[in-house]
């Protein structure tokens, strides 16, 4: 058979796109150079967040994704540990609280459920939280998933609808008919298709390059510390400091850390989040993990004696304007992109996949993809 769509990449974004494409009736082949969810999908915290986004296209996509997670994908939530735990954003100072109030007001205007909390209310939400915090906000829509299970189960569901998943198969080039992309080349043979979706995450720029187009996806490194298993309910929500929102939006190359602390279904506590642009360097940074631990302890003093079992790192696929690249590429007809979601790829994958499928079958998309257009970057931002 000739496939309707080849998806390059078996991470969360590729898996969600493949799943929704099969739902739309497309014949799909997923090609992945490594294993399922082996890239950035296996190196995150499983964030499904609205709280960390300022008004704009990314928040629109996050809110849309909320609906897809909670409606389209609701029946599978248990498979990937979907937990609607809510996010708790805390600020240490009165100034921090004031800017947080400004943010929540804007977010509420966009449809985010954001509830302002005073100093005294914080510990009703998190009993172990430091008493030295000035205030915060609670976001009931924030949720968490286990991202590798998301990718693996979405691919399983896609396979049940006829999709093929070829792991350990690297795309080495594109098939062309004139300017048009008509499939991919792999060492295991050519895979012709009506369209190719580049969902190669942090490596999407390289894949785009094989088609002769430039997409500015860069790696932004992050570390996470994982603690010993703790009793259920030790930390109940996704808890982070208000400065995190600023760090996410910043483009600074130097190391930034803002504390993000949350429990998991397995009992471990995940501690993030660091950001630095150091290429694909996989060396453990003592400065980064040290800062993560110190800041987490500042939020939750009881973590002082809790032991970390491991740390892991990943490379967020980062675009200069912090927006993902989603949609057809006019420079190479037949080539589509769904990449560059930075640290929000897990949460945004559901909406991205559904929108891509809608666009691929030529329908109207539930959300305007124009802000995510692949051709939007200025020359100086391109690789």
């Amino acid at each position, binding site marked *: 058979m000739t496939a309707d769509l080849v998806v390059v990449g078996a991470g969360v974004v590729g898996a969600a796109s493949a799943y929704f494409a099969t739902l739309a009736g497309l014949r799909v082949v997923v090609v992945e150079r490594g294993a399922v969810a082996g890239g950035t999908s296996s190196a995150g915290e499983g964030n499904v967040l609205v709280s960390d986004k300022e008004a704009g296209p990314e928040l629109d996509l996050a809110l849309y994704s909320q609906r897809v997670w909670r409606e389209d994908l609701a029946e599978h939530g248990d498979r990937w540990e979907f937990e609607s735990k809510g996010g708790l954003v805390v600020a240490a100072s009165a100034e921090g609280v004031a800017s947080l109030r400004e943010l929540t007001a804007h977010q509420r205007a966009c449809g985010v459920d954001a509830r302002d909390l005073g100093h005294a209310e914080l510990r009703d939400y998190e009993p172990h939280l430091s008493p030295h915090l000035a205030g915060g906000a609670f976001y009931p829509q924030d949720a968490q998933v286990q991202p590798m299970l998301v990718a693996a189960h979405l691919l399983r569901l896609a396979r049940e609808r006829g999709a093929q998943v070829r792991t350990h198969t690297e795309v080495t080039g594109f098939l062309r008919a004139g300017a048009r992309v008509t499939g991919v080349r792999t060492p295991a043979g050519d895979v012709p298709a009506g369209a190719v979706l580049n969902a190669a995450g942090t490596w999407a720029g390289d894949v785009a390059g094989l088609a002769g187009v430039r997409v500015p996806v860069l790696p932004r490194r992050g570390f996470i510390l994982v603690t*010993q298993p703790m009793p259920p309910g030790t930390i109940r929500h996704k808890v982070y400091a208000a400065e995190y929102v600023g760090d996410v939006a910043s483009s600074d190359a130097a190391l930034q850390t803002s504390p993000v602390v949350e429990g998991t279904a397995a*009992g471990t506590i995940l501690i993030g989040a660091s950001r630095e642009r150091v290429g694909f360097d996989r060396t453990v940074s003592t400065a980064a993990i040290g800062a993560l631990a110190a800041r987490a302890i500042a939020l939750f003093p009881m973590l002082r004696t809790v*032991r970390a079992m491991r740390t892991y790192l990943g490379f967020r696929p980062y675009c200069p304007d912090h927006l993902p690249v989603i949609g057809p590429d006019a420079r190479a007809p037949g080539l589509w992109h769904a990449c560059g979601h930075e640290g929000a790829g897990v949460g945004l994958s559901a909406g991205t996949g559904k929108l891509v499928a809608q666009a691929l079958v030529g329908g109207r998309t539930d959300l305007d993809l124009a802000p995510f257009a692949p051709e939007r970057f200025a020359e100086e931002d391109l690789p």
Partner: protein
Amino acid sequence: MTYRMTFRGAVVPAEPGQSVAAALVAAGVTDWRTTRRGGRPRGLFCGIGICFDCLITVDGVPDQRACLVAAADGLRLGDAPPDAGDARPGPGGALPDAGGADEPGRDDAARA
């Protein structure tokens, strides 16, 4: 001298130089914690600090490897009893209760 430690309200004797785990095993106690998921009993497995199966609370400090912690006189092993009435024998069932030890009448658990 023989050390006297307490575990779940019972006295566990120990020879100086023994580990906490060795003293428990010698006293007939083969498990001292339950697993998170299955609630299954666990005790000593690797005996050399590798497997973390033998985790135990020692004097209120949780998650110590019983195979590595040296026995000492008066150590309180296991979670602090919620109240004095929690003096059930270990599942091993081989322990004398505090009153049945070498020096009758001394109840170390009461110090908690």
